[in-house]
């Protein structure tokens, strides 16, 4: 880790500590604090979970149990790009699940997993509540209503290629 990185890590830890203090280190704020930690670090590694457990005076297994219970918390580092396929009822009916399968095959990543090179995470979500836009896909926080396989692959490939040329 270079100096720059370690500074950033310190900033993040300080930010997390601030949030924990705002919640007065109350154990019942655990989920809020996990959200905050994930915002800072992008995912929840064991060191962070251990730190939160220590600060809130909670057993480590309890903190891990809570973090792993909820789908929103990542216990593995996410890819640099994210493709989230909605598999709610409407999206399923209109081909969302099939689309997810096709993307799994195309990119060789199982749903919920990240490509070995860390470029892309493929995941599903059970209904974003925007059923009028089915099938809905979210790529890096940007929604793609009425998605279909070709354009989604094109868009993702462009994002992945775009990153290769960057320094």
């Amino acid at each position, binding site marked *: 880790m270079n100096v720059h990185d370690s500074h950033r890590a310190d900033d993040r830890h300080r930010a997390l500590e601030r949030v924990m203090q705002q919640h007065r280190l109350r154990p019942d704020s655990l989920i809020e604090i996990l959200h905050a930690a994930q915002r800072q670090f992008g995912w929840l590694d*064991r060191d962070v*979970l*251990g730190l939160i*457990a220590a600060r809130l005076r909670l*057993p*480590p*297994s*309890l*903190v*891990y*149990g809570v973090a*792993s*219970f909820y789908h929103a918390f990542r216990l593995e580092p996410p890819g640099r790009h994210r493709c989230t396929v909605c598999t709610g009822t409407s999206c399923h009916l209109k081909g969302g699940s099939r689309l997810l399968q096709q993307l799994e095959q195309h990119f060789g990543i199982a749903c919920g997993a990240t490509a070995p090179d860390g470029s892309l995470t493929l995941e599903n979500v059970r209904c974003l509540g925007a059923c009028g836009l089915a099938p809905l896909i979210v790529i890096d926080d940007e929604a793609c209503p009425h998605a279909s396989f070709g354009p989604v692959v094109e868009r993702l490939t462009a994002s992945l290629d775009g990153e290769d040329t960057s320094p």
Partner: protein
Amino acid sequence: MPRLTLTINNRSVSARRGESILSAARRSGSDIPTLCNLGGLIPAGACRVCLVEVAGYPRPVPACATRAEQGMVVTTDTERLTAARRMIVELLLAERNHSCAVCVMNQHCQLQDLAARLGIDHVRFAFISPLAGVDISHERFGIDHNRCILCRRCVRVCDEIEGAHTWDVDGRGAASRIICDLAQPWGTSATCTGCGKCVQACPTGALFEKDAPTKKATIDMERLSEWRRSRK
């Protein structure tokens, strides 16, 4: 202490206020099968093996976690209940890898006994056969997730009686798995006191003592928790 009267299997039974149906039934000689229940621990009502029927209730209720009420009419062994219990045990047998013949708890397992008691001579469901893993990193104990039925007796005994809360549950649904601290090898746990209560609380061969390849001694958790309460 105030007492109340209820009917269990056509017999009038007296119970303490706040006492569970299970405890009242056992005292009156009706033996309701249980699995996730362990005297001295807070009942979870999770395995549903101790379901009983109460007149006027739309669905069966868990005897371990339902309080006896004045005038309740309870039945513990109807055909419907037996069918439900069988179904639960068969589903548990199919969920992970319960190969009794090669299990440290063979002949001393509560799941095995319960299956026989309920007349289960085969399992109707497909075996799911997950690769569940074994952790033998602790110097004295081991955990074999293949045998685990997720009753959480270990989690509760470690939290409620030992006070260490070394165990908890990772994930949810079918992917639930008992974990130690931050899902790390048991041998590296910073919180485990090595007391062995979890091993004794485990109804199957999931938690075992190394070098003691057969029967586990079972201690009386109820007395232990009373002792702990009295020290508080």
